[in-house]
């Protein structure tokens, strides 16, 4: 703001030699600027030279003209401010200092252009002012050498207001501090510390990029396989237990079927329901191992009599047999319902013999299927098929590398 006001205060028609000492004082900025604006190591050597030029110019200026006097206080203010800047140099970013130098240079260039239209009345100050540029030129030359790209050669052009905030045309110089985005905020960190967070972000990216939809599918499949394995083992044991209980209750050569009906009629329907649940899970698991949907693979397994293929056939047969006994199970369930037509006398043998034999066959089938699957528990053609889904793995990795760039 002080620079803006000082620019407005400068006369446009009356030329006045403008040197660094006439430039408006720079005040430290509160907000950090773009890193590319920083000058880095170039700043320290220029500053002491500027101070010398300003001190020398101050010696020449003392008590000569009001125009000069008006500007005089400002250069007197400049050295202490610059001293303060030097002290603050360690804490503030180098952006402020560079931008201050740019404004000074812009002002100096504009001033030197104005010098050409000086009137006769100002010959004395001109002479003095000429001295100033002479003194300052030596200093300016060294300064301008490093910042030739920032020199404004167009005399008619006013100093643009937006140049204070626009990016310089010069090459960006590396600085010690870098602004890194963390948690949606920019934090200044040293370049030396960049290695650590970058590694963490890379690890985070690697961790998040591991789980793809294919991995989820594989995980679900493996989880179901474990559940199927448990169901198959439990089914085999439960079917054997059920058969033993039925034969024990039915007596020797099925002589006490009435006893069986009286003891077992409450368990018949729940046992049938549980049998269906376990058979469904076991059959689906067996189909998964064989990859039944892929006919070529399934046919190959069936023809080569692979254990998984045999087990799937046995489970499917057991399922059909079990479902065929649904009617009889409901009949047993309704034994004590008070309906005499369901169980006429002498009909127990007719209804129950087939039911007991089928239950025995189901137990044998599921037991054999479980034994076949146990010989090769790691065999799973569907999992192999799911793993081969991601064929183009290398382009995926390339795309992942491109995204953060």
């Amino acid at each position, binding site marked *: 703001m002080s620079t803006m006001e000082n620019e407005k205060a400068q006369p446009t028609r009356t030329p006045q030699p403008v040197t660094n000492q006439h430039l408006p004082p720079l005040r430290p900025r509160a907000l950090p600027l773009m890193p590319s604006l920083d000058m880095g190591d170039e700043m320290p050597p220029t500053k002491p030279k500027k101070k010398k030029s300003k001190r020398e110019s101050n010696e020449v200026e003392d008590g000569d003209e009001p125009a000069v006097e008006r500007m005089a206080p400002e250069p007197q203010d400049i050295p202490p401010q610059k001293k303060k800047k030097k002290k603050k140099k360690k804490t503030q970013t180098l952006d402020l200092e560079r931008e201050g130098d740019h404004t000074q240079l812009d002002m100096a260039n504009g001033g030197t252009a104005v010098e050409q239209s000086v009137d006769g009345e100002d010959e004395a100050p001109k002479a003095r002012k000429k001295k100033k540029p002479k003194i300052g030129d030596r200093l300016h030359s060294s300064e301008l050498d490093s910042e030739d790209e920032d020199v404004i050669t167009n005399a008619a052009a006013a100093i643009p207001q937006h140049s204070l905030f626009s990016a310089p045309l010069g090459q960006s110089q590396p600085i010690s501090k870098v602004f890194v985005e963390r948690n949606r905020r920019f934090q200044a960190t040293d370049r030396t510390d960049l290695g650590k967070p970058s590694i963490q972000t890379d690890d985070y990216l690697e961790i998040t*990029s591991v789980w*793809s939809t294919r991995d989820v599918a594989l995980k679900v499949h493996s989880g179901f396989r474990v559940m199927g394995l448990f169901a198959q083992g439990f089914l085999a044991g439960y079917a054997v237990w059920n058969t033993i209980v039925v034969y024990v209750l039915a007596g020797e050569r099925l002589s006490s079927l009435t006893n069986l009906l009286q003891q077992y009629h409450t368990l018949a329907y729940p046992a049938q329901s549980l049998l269906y649940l376990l058979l469904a899970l076991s059959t689906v698991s067996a189909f998964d191992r064989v990859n039944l949907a892929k006919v070529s693979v399934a046919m190959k397994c069936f023809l080569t009599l692979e254990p998984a293929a045999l087990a799937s056939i046995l489970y499917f047969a057991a399922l059909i047999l079990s479902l065929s006994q649904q009617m009889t199970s409901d009949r047993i369930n309704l034994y004590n319902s008070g309906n005499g037509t369901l169980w006429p006398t002498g009909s127990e043998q007719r209804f129950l013999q087939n039911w007991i034999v089928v239950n025995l066959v189901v137990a044998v089938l599921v037991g054999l299927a479980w034994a076949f699957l146990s010989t090769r528990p790691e065999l799973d053609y569907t999992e192999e098929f799911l793993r081969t889904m991601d064929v183009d793995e290398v382009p995926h990795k390339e795309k992942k590398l491109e995204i953060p760039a």
Partner: protein
Amino acid sequence: MKAALKLLHGPKAGILILLLWLISGCRCFRIPSDVLACGFSAEMLQTNNYSLVLLIQLVLLAYDLFVNSFSELLRAAPVIQLVLFIIQDIAILFNVIIILLMMFNTYVFQVGLVSLLLERFRALLLLSALYLSLSISFHCWIMNLRWLDSNRFVWTDGLQVLFVFQRLSAVLYYYFYKRTAEYLGDPRLYEDSTWLRDAFARARQ
């Protein structure tokens, strides 16, 4: 206006809302740019959405298996079985809709290779239609027989055959549905690849 308000009451409202939610949830496979700008990778979001949809499908399948297994035990009152059967049929329908939406969300479908998808998942679509028709017919028949007295012996040979076919098709439906849902996790279906371009070239020929 009154008709629209009427739709917001009763079980139809729940079905409509659930259907809209499912559709919006399945559309989340397409990740919008503003979501990506929040720092989430496209792959991460797609995986999360896929996991959620897969979970919903598995829950519906589990419910279907539960009703098929234990509905015969829960017949203290006929209305209990009726409600269970209605929800089961709606769950089968929702499952079919979800799998179709998953197919529509694939890049393969959007490119125009509908025939490729239909050829791959033809077995599931046919089986789903068969299972749904068998389920509805069995449920209608058995509810009709048990409505006046749920503790009565209603089994006939025809009902027994229908029961066996319905339960067998259920097992096949579970297997093919689970497999299809896992197969739709193939990353190749959601992005451009040489495999897709070859398939497109073959389809054009």
